[in-house]
């Protein structure tokens, strides 16, 4: 989809198709939303609070977000989640509770799923953050995302980026032999844990979905796990 969205206020979110209707070109509103560059948003469109805040409590850090090096000055009280959302314009991770109780803010931090609302931004110098918007750098959907859409494993979509980051993390953790509460004690330490439905449910229980899409979330992860059988890590 061509980059059709202008940056005037009326084009944000909706209004795109209507505005473009007269010249016969009507981009899909969802695709239009997707083409907007979050980085551009981050540099021009979001809080300037960093420069106005108290200098004594500021810190500058550089981290990698979805494959790009990003440098940002933050109030040292800022969570990684707020740094991403309010400073860098990366709104793929969501804020559902800000207390590590819902999982909507889950990102992959150096490859492991992490609650970004419980992580202080200043502690992330030099680290690698991957959000659901950066899982596939070709701009395509990651197989996990494809499976979520196919199984309709989402409704309102607000918990979904966190669910997907978590699910991707689960595949890696199981492959690396990390046990869960329901893992058969007879599975030898360090060998891959088969992702049964019980394993998926247990490992995904840190990600709440109020719409109640759990049955379909399990089905989506089961599908992807079957396509990519876990490989023993050693």
């Amino acid at each position, binding site marked *: 989809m061509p980059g059709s969205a202008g*940056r005037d206020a009326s084009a944000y979110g909706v209004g795109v198709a209507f505005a473009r209707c007269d010249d016969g070109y009507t981009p899909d509103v969802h695709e239009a939303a997707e083409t907007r560059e979050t980085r551009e948003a981050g540099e021009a469109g979001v809080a300037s609070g960093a420069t106005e805040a108290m200098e004594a409590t500021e810190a500058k850090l550089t981290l990698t977000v979805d494959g790009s090096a990003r440098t940002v000055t933050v109030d040292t009280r800022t969570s990684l989640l707020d740094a991403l959302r309010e400073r860098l314009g990366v*709104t793929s991770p969501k804020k559902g509770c800000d*207390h590590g109780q819902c999982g909507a803010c889950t990102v992959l931090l150096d490859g492991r799923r992490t609650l970004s609302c419980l992580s202080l931004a200043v502690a992330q110098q030099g680290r690698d953050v991957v959000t659901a918007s950066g899982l596939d750098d070709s701009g395509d959907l990651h197989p996990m995302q494809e499976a979520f859409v196919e199984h309709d494993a989402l409704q309102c979509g607000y918990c979904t980026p966190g669910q997907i980051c978590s699910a991707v993390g689960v595949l890696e953790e199981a492959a690396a032999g990390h046990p869960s509460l329901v893992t058969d004690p007879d599975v030898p330490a360090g060998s891959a844990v088969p992702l049964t439905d019980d394993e998926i449910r247990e490992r995904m229980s840190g990600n709440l979905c109020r719409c*109640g899409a759990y049955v379909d979330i399990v089905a989506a992860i089961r599908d992807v796990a079957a396509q990519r059988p876990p490989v023993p890590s050693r």
Partner: protein
Amino acid sequence: MTLTGTPPAVGTAVGPAVGPAVGRGVRRLDGRVKVRGMARYAFEQLAESPAYLHLLQSTVARGRVSDVDASEAEALEGVLLVLTHLNSPKLADTSDGEYTVLQSPGVAFRGQIVGCVVATSPEVARHGAELVRIRYDEHPHDTRLREDDPDLYAPDEVNASFPTDTDEGPVEEALRSSAVVVDQRYSTPMEHNNPMEPHSCIATWDESQERPTLTVYDSTQGAHGVASTLAKVLGLAQQDVRVISPYVGGGFGSKGLPHAHNVLVALAARTLPGRPVKLALTRQQMFFLAGYRTPTLQRVRIGADADGRITGLVHEAVEQTSRIKEFAEQTTVVSRNMYAARARRTSHRLAALDVPVPSWMRAPGEAPGMYGLEHAMDELAEACGLDPVELRIRNDPPADPETGKPWSGRHLVECLRVGAERFGWSRRGPTGSRRDGDWLVGFGVASSTYPGNVMPGSVARVRYGGRGHYAVHIGAADIGTGSWTALNQVAADALGLAMNRVHLEIGDTALPMATVEGGSSGMASHGSAILEACRRFREEHGESPEPGATTESAAAEHPEAKEYATHSYGAQFVEVRVDADTGEVRVPRMVGVFSCGRIVNPRTARSQFRGGMVWGLSMALFEHSIVDHRFGHVMNHDLADYHVPTNADVVDIDVSWLDETDLHLNPLGVRGIGEIGITGTAAAVASAVHNATGIRVRDLPITPDTLVR
């Protein structure tokens, strides 16, 4: 896709042909952006140099603010504004107590908004809020709902404009002469909607033009409703308030109406014209300010003759409301027409307490009411020595007992029969008869119902853009319901186009008026408006329109709807396993069969039904907002302590529906699907728990301590 059951004979009218899109399980059109997190919810909309608002909430449950010291907060670098009743702009309309924000020092419940701090960053706003010193004159408060409260009163009407009480036939006499009588009390607790996306806004007040205008990005189930409320309260012309809400992270009723925070953010924006003001309620704040389901105290009395035919039915409910605004949940309305009875009485009584304002929560009325009624039916079956499925079949009324009107399509009996078959109901054993190791196993059943609702007033616009592409505009909402997809399907078929030639826009008051995405009425109301606008477009502009050709229309009149009683029905079957030692309840299996008219998109519909059933499971076992009556607040006001189901709590949910089209209510043949899944579910769980353990838990939720003996 699984369609089960024999297509019942319904309706005689000939509706529009089902086209290639309607009825197909199309993948969610907004799925791609949502799985990548690229759908922008309200708080994520771009805003230049936004300011951040943090609430100040009362720390007493009743009283007056006696002193405000904002000096320290105002001295904090980055604080732009401390707003309280002392310096707030005046509102133009104060007829609604919930929206009358910062207009007086009065406090009517703990957690009420008494001010806010606006700053250049969220961290500074929150810091500033901690520095504002507020003193109160505290008055005695009462937050406890009691059946014997001397101040109980009968409201003029209950939610959705139902009469408060009904009284048909000599019910006391019927009960006295019944062979079998069940007389029990049931209670449901205070519950909070808790959509995953907190209530959020970005408000900008613009004074650069001749007249001030207000633009609000909001997370709402009804953009037009928010705009009209804000316009009225703030004294603006409705066309000068624009509300934009393309994606909504769940609502479940709590975003059906604007709440106090919408007014507050507008007041702050008005004080800082030109600057976008961002407000997201914290999860904790949502327990005070975003509505909730009232606790209910219900008494159900059912008399039956020896073969289980109901002679008299009485359903009474006591509920709470706030002192600043009345909300009367329609809890016992379901008992007016669910089953046949020769005599019946229903009533609602309210206590106005020092509590936050209750409001809509998924199936208000039907969810708690069907718990009481259906649990009592389970007890009646036991008392009559009848199978609970058979009891319900015996009491299926041939016409609406309340109005005498014919049913537009009542297929409860088919749902029960199909569900019993799918579930394996015949394997149910006597009470307390099945054990698997440490687990006591039980089966339960209950009926579901929800009215078929159509709300008048929605308008759709169809416009030809050229090169084969059409824009379809309506200010509707997709709160996870799948409207982005299903409304597109309706428009594509009505215009005779492939779906990718239709470009739907919703969620903006710049689009034609739409009613709230609530009451399971979205498809019936918004879909019908789109259907008629598309039909008229073709009538006016033909198959080869000029680019720019436009037609706007409301839904066609459908007078036939008034001649029928229009309700959806369903049957829910549940297996539970109860740990014999700890009382832990697990639900390995649920089966739901529904009759809801035509299903526009089986893929997204299945998710709606399943989600509703998960809510019912949650109501049965988990949800309970626990008030500390000494202070008047909900103690478990976060997602660690307010329990909702996690992935591990939900195992196997089998959903199916009758293949049916109900053309009596609207030309699309739909009756709505968003809420029915929660109704009756908790009673089915309670029925299964009783079957497993022999214990009747009548006060929800069914927690382990209620089952340890």
